[in-house]
């Protein structure tokens, strides 16, 4: 493997990472909004939540990617493959985040709700000061888990011609036939990205736990 091949792979990795990050951010907002629907007092909104989560989670990412890739032009929305890819990941990961956050809300002990209630906290303050901080602490490990998965899942988007690490690797393989070297290096790069994300998660965890949270970091 020569330097230009490696550069190409690293460029692809940059796109993969950018894809993951530009999807994780909006997916977090989508997930939080979905969770709010899931706990709505209106049954219709709760059904909407379940419908979204079950349908999206029950569809293979590959199928969802193809569906959106072909659906966008049919809807007269002309976007590049990158935007389509980020959209696919956002919609998919949003459903996973929603379930992660829902688990966090369910994990809040009843006495905490009662304390907040007995203080007469208005809903906005209750969410911002009590629910959200607790959910963040409870869900950080599974949240990071989904983030790591997102980095790897971005490889699926090569099928809809998003030029990222996996597509770059396949192009190089077609030219050089160095299947195992190139795939090996690509896998190593994926590993390093995921490992970095993991470490970041751990640091965040430790920072949050140190601020008085009952659980000790493991």
């Amino acid at each position: 493997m020569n330097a230009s091949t490696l550069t190409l792979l690293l460029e692809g990795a940059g796109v993969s990472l950018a894809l993951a990050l530009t999807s994780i951010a909006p997916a977090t907002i989508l997930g939080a909004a979905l969770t709010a629907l899931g706990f709505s007092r209106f049954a219709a909104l709760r059904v909407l939540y379940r419908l979204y989560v079950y349908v999206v989670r029950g569809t293979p990412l590959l199928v969802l990617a193809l569906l959106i890739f072909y659906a966008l032009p049919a809807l007269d929305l002309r976007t590049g493959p990158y935007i389509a890819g980020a959209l696919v990941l956002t919609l998919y990961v949003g459903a996973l985040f929603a379930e992660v956050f829902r688990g966090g809300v369910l994990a809040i002990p009843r006495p905490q709700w009662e304390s907040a209630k007995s203080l007469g906290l208005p809903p906005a303050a209750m969410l911002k000061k009590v629910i959200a901080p607790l959910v963040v602490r409870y869900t950080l490990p599974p949240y990071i888990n989904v983030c790591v998965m997102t980095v790897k899942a971005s490889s699926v988007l090569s099928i809809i011609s998003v030029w990222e690490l996996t597509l770059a690797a396949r192009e190089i393989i077609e030219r050089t036939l160095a299947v195992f070297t190139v795939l090996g290096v690509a896998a190593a790069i994926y590993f390093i990205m995921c490992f970095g994300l993991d470490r970041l998660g751990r640091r965040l965890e430790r920072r949050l736990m140190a601020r008085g949270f009952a659980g000790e970091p493991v």
Partner: protein
Amino acid sequence: MIEVRGLKKAFAATPVLRGVDLRVDDGEVLALIGRSGCGKTTLLRCINFLEDYDEGEIRLDDHPLWYRTDPDGRRRRVPDQEARRMRQQMGVVFQQYNLFPHMTALENVCLGPRFSQKVPAADALTLGRKLLARVGLADKVDAYPVHLSGGQQQRVAIARALAMRPKVLLLDEITSALDPELVGEVEDVIRSLLPERIMMVLVTHALGFAREIAHRIGYVAGGVIAEIGRPEQILEQPQDATLKDFLRRIR
């Protein structure tokens, strides 16, 4: 003044409160005693509407709480916003302290004033510091609950309840979860509140403490207040047969 009239509450098909009538006057300290499962905690929780009830009326200073009766006789819950205002007039202290683990002692105490009563941040902090000093925790303002003993956590919880300047303190077995040597410091804080003549309703198993601080003791049995009166009366000349039996067992 708190008035409870004909309060009924059932969990599924099991009636817990079968028509409780109760009146607590301003400045009065009322202790509720009774066997575990008799409904005394449920009664306390109903007063703060942490527990819904099926029938009856609860009034605070002559204003009906939690439910309104429409002109057509239908019972309707008050809107959430009104319920929050009602809750702000009461301070609750729980058996398990229930401090927010992600907030310092000071943040715990300031949360209600700051966000429920919209007190300016600086004033809330001053109030919080003052109250924590009052419960003997001036040096723990920045400590997180996990770093405090049970007794200290419960004192923070009392300060948190007081921070709302409540008309009544509802104390639910506040020393039951504590190690015996920590009970005293929490009881001392409650004692120190007595000169302020703040209305208190406490559910307790500590008969000695109840006798010392309460103006009246109510014995809850069979889903009603079976007997109520001055502490000496209740503890020394009980009339109710089950109360006599209860006192014999507990001593």
